[in-house]
């Protein structure tokens, strides 16, 4: 058996560590009979394209983000202020969680099997050089052009926070920060900050949502494996995923240190600033999300997040 596993990240990213662990274990379990053709670094296309390739069976496995064009319910994964810390995040999104079941259902509708949820980190936003760093919302954010991913919910959030949200292709972000066409980039976990270090003033680590990602396989391919092969695959994947929580947390600290070493200020909000920020985000996003996924799922999330 041979399968392609592709993702867009380099050897520093948690995707790579999880992949390596998975491949090693799979090799052991199958005695080398289950080979993985590994394509990191995005050589098979950007993450949306690789996800589509998995859904359609041209590639067997990938690690991916919320591809809301395929299913808007997927935006649950960037809903703000669901988890307040790492322990809460693991309870809400980790192995055996309710959310894991919700996501598995979404993936199934798209012809994919969820192999596991891989945590990356909490997210904040970056601010370009020479720009005052906003910490009080919405007042400080007035007139700031903030690049957001082109999702309605992201635009709602950053509008509510007082920014001018600018949707822009990722490939243009670095130049646009450099020249000042935009003033910052939203939805940035620490791992995605150092690549912009040379043009940044600060990283505001708001922890506004917990970014987690999806390890998926093509369903038809997965179902077509023998029971034994499927057993090896899920065992290796489960082990790699359960190890990923501790790993992600330790990597977070490492990336924050690297950001500061690169001359970029890491700014944390005071409890009062944070509370104002949180209220704005929840007020803007939760009704929007409820429209898409329904009250039942949202009630579960509110219960978990303590935002009843």
């Amino acid at each position, binding site marked *: 058996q041979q399968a*392609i596993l592709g993702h867009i990240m380099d050897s520093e990213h948690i995707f790579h560590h999880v992949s390596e662990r998975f491949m090693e274990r799979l090799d052991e379990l199958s005695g080398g009979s289950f080979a993985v053709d590994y*394509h990191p670094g*995005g*050589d*098979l*296309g*950007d993450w*949306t*394209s690789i996800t*589509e*390739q998995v859904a*359609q*069976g*041209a*590639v067997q496995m990938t690690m991916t983000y919320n591809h809301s064009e395929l299913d808007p319910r997927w935006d649950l994964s960037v809903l703000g202020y669901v988890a307040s810390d790492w322990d809460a995040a693991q309870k809400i999104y980790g192995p055996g969680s309710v959310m894991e079941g919700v996501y598995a259902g979404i993936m199934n509708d798209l012809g994919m099997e969820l192999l596991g949820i891989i945590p990356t980190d909490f997210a904040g936003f970056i601010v370009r*050089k020479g720009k005052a760093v906003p910490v009080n919302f919405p007042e400080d954010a007035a007139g700031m052009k903030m690049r957001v991913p082109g999702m309605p919910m992201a635009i709602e959030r950053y509008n509510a926070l007082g920014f001018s949200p600018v949707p*822009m*292709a990722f*490939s*243009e972000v*670095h*130049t*646009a920060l*450099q*020249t*000042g*066409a935009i003033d910052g980039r939203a939805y940035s976990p620490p791992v995605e900050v150092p690549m912009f270090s*040379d*043009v940044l003033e600060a990283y505001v680590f708001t922890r506004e949502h917990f970014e987690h990602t999806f390890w998926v396989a093509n369903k038809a391919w997965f179902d077509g494996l023998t029971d034994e092969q499927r057993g090896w695959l899920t065992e290796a994947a489960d082990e790699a995923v359960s190890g990923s929580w501790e790993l992600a947390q330790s990597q977070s600290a490492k990336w924050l240190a690297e950001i500061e070493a690169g001359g970029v200020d890491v700014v944390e909000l005071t409890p009062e600033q944070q509370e104002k920020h949180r209220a704005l985000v929840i007020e803007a996003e939760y009704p929007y999300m409820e429209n898409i996924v329904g009250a039942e799922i949202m009630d579960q999330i509110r219960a978990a997040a303590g935002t009843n």
Partner: protein
Amino acid sequence: MIALFIVLIVVVFFLLIEVPVGFAFGIGALLYGYMSGTDISFHAGFGYTQISAFSLLAIPLFILSGTLMGASGISDRLLNFVNSFVGRTKGGLGAVTVITCAIFGAISGSASAAIAAIGKIMVPRMIREGYPPGHATALVAVSSVLALLIPPSIPMIVFAIAIRESVAKAFLSTMIPGILLAIIYCGLNFWFLRNNRTIVVQPKLPAQETVRQIAITGKQASLAILMPGIILGGIYSGIATPTEAGAVALVYTLFVGILIYRTLSWGNLFNSTVEAARLTGAIIMVLFFLFVMSRGMVLAKVPTQFADFLLSISDNRIVILLLINLLLLLMGMIIDDVSGSVLAAIILLPVTQSIGLDPIHFAGIVGVNLGLGNISPPCAPLLYMAGGVTKQPLSTYIGPTMKFLMLGHLPMVFLVTFIPELSLWLPSLLG
């Protein structure tokens, strides 16, 4: 690797029998998928996804603004302006051609637009004044490449996307080489013509009259001269991204052509616009099938194998750089610049990474090499286009072209390869 070699031969065969470059790669991609046993079912979807990228939008926008600049007479005004400086010296018209191509390059992303806009006017004028027709045509062909080296540049947009680097930085990587090359071509032009006796030089004007001419033509060309400032200034001051700058240039051209110069009639506008859309289609089609072909190669891990192979020949940086140049030169001979950019990015990027080459320096090397490839036979679109526009047979201008390339462009390739500052200094100012 053997499968790839066979596929390469098939692709070259189809290229030689005049199958369009894109389709030749399409044929190659299917054959390669079949031979290597890799997936081809997503090829069409992949090519489609890749060309729908937002950053590729700069291509239609720069092509359209370039086409409309030609149609609205902006290039004529530029020519007259440059002519008022050096037109009345022996070989002066040649220098005017080179310099105007360079200035035109700063507002247009494509070299063929430069040939169409400048070649059509300058070559007949040069021949009328006694220039050898071969020299005149060759000069237009080699100078048109300046439009690719001086930003904006379509191959550089494509290349930057393929290696996931900043388009703005990639633009700047070939700018100094482009300006140097313009100076060298001016010098070579005068030198090649030094013993010529057929050229009739218009009598020199008194200094006062020259100044008056410069003022008059300068005023007429002022809206055109402003244009590079609008485009490059727009990009590097943060008003617009490179993609948007193409749109700003377009609106400016429409404004000047329709309302100020009043040279863009409705029919003129419609036809030029359709022509630009067609040219866009021609370029994007090549990209579509190249992205497909590259996916096939990536699935079979060709780039990494190729890198290992090159590094097994030698791990000496200079040797590797020379090998890269040799490959780019060969690539440039058989295909066009846009295809070359993608292929170079995909096949050579792993090698350049392992010898620690700065990606923007790599962009400079690729840009200068592929510029050369565009005018080096057998696949030399710019060379044939120059002959087509000026109605000269290849035999009259192939000789002079080779002299310009050997003494001008080829040495520049080596300078850019071994003096990284030529490509890195300007981008470094961006911070």
